[in-house]
């Protein structure tokens, strides 16, 4: 882990030097994100990137040197050698060592990502053509999240609305997912029709939503804020128009929000019998089975 951290720090320092405008850099590079995992992933990314850059400098350097020096037009006389066992062994072994050096921290991070234990909130996410459904499985709250109306109007063919005039064009939804800050949120991901993928770059993870199966991932967001992502698996005509928006609130704000949601739901549910309140897994299954059977 130390290695990744060191690489991360070195990376930060390097591009800090290289580019005075940090904002510009974030337009062309991976995001550091707001979770421990996303930072680790970022560190890995920078580590490999710089290793590749270093190798490129060396290899391209030799190529450029050859091109510049051994020119027929400069009267270069070709040598006749056609192999060199020592060199060949070296340039087979060294890459292997470099790869081992990359694989170790990568494997560590992978193990961490896979560790679902100790989650403090479980959210079930279901992809539909073309919207997301979020269910707080232990709290009886559930709702759909679709592209915000402003974006939806602007994105119609020849709408005449300039995308620049729409705030968060294509990255805004009506009902964002709301989660508490600093808590391990476990996300259960599935889909109802075709494969989608749920992705928030700032959390460092994306996971496919596969109909009939449940995938899991987790994140723990350090900072309150609004984080935006998109569906990341081609899911048909409006694949480009099903953003993911997550609002991270402090625990207190989150609790208040959740209570309000529950209250609103109860109020709505009372007249309309139970239909609106989704939620035990069993109901779910019944619903899915009906859908499937059709």
């Amino acid at each position, binding site marked *: 882990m130390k290695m990744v951290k060191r690489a991360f720090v070195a990376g930060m320092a390097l591009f800090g030097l290289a580019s005075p405008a940090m904002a510009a850099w974030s337009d062309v590079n991976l995001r550091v994100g707001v979770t421990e995992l996303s930072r680790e992933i970022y560190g890995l990314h920078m580590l490999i990137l710089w290793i590749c850059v270093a190798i490129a400098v060396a290899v391209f350097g030799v190529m450029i040197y050859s091109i510049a020096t051994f020119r027929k037009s400069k009267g270069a006389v070709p040598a006749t050698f056609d192999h060199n066992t020592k060199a060949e062994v070296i340039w087979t072994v060294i890459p292997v060592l470099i790869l081992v050096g990359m694989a170790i921290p990568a494997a560590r991070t992978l193990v961490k990502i896979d560790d679902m234990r100790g989650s403090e909130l479980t959210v079930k996410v279901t992809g539909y053509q073309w919207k997301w459904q979020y269910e707080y499985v232990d709290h009886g709250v559930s709702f759909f999240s679709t592209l915000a109306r402003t974006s939806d109007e602007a994105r119609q063919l020849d709408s005449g609305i300039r995308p620049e005039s729409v705030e968060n064009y294509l990255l805004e939804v009506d009902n964002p997912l709301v989660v508490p800050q600093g808590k391990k949120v476990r996300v259960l991901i599935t889909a109802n029709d075709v494969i989608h993928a749920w992705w928030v770059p700032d959390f460092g993870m994306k996971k496919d939503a596969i109909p*009939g199966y449940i995938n899991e991932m987790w994140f723990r967001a350090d900072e309150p804020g609004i984080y935006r992502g998109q569906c990341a698996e081609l899911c048909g005509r409006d694949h480009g128009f099903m953003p993911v928006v997550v609002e991270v609130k402090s625990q207190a704000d989150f609790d208040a929000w959740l209570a309000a949601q529950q209250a609103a739901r109860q109020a709505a549910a009372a007249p309309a019998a139970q239909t609106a309140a989704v939620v035990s897994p069993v109901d779910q299954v019944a619903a899915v089975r009906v859908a499937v059977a059709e």
Partner: protein
Amino acid sequence: MAQAQAAHGSDKYYIPHGSKWPAVGAVTLFVTMLGTAAVLNGSSMGPWIAYLGLAGVAYMFFGWFGTVIDESQRGLYNAGVDRSFRMGMTWFIFSEVMFFAAFFGALYYARQLSVPWLGGEGSRFMTNLFLWPDFEASWPTNGPAGIGGDFQTIPAFGLPAINTAILLTSGVTITIAHHALKAGNRGVLKIFLALTFLLGFAFVGLQAEEYIHAYKELNLTLGSGVYGSTFFMLTGFHGLHVTIGAIMLLVIWLRVMKGHFTPTHHFAFEATAWYWHFVDVVWLGLFIFVYWL
């Protein structure tokens, strides 16, 4: 045949002249595919287009193989050409093996991975808990939604065992035929070759019987979930290959009756025999993994 013998002396690699058959094949296959697609899309024209195309394909096969047989009889194929044919056939069979591998892979995946996952095994118990809580992994299965309704399977040691015996026997008969051919014993050759393709057709007949039984009485269909899917796709493609192989054997037999082939020069016979053995081996895989285990 004298010519065929003479050809072995030739060291010139035979390169055929222009031939219309490839173009005919491409056009007729195009028409066949177009027609089949139209059938699938529910067009009433579809079947006619498809039949037209198929007739053309049949015409192409007759013409093309007729040319090849003719060239072979005229002794144009020397040892080098023969070697090319052998290599070509070998790699063709390998490609067929890989085609079946895709379906065996699907079977493996369904049995070892997807069905257990749906039943909640491994790290996937959430799948079971939330989506398919009543489902318990088992094999055979038509999946958690019970697609196609309850069905029964075909026991390995009924018809399938008989079919296994048939195919294995046909493997023996073709080998006897081959030895007879090499020994110049054409009487035995004719009988055992005929036996081989008869066994082949008998296999196909029994397989058809089995399918009818499955559809009519067992409610086992292509639509019986992943069991029905893998069962019918594997046995179906195998049955198709047996049919093709049996037709090849029949053609070879007809050629034998016409006096083709010599003890040393009989690539078509051998190619068919290889193909037949390949079909045989695939069946063993089917018998073990589809019917038995």
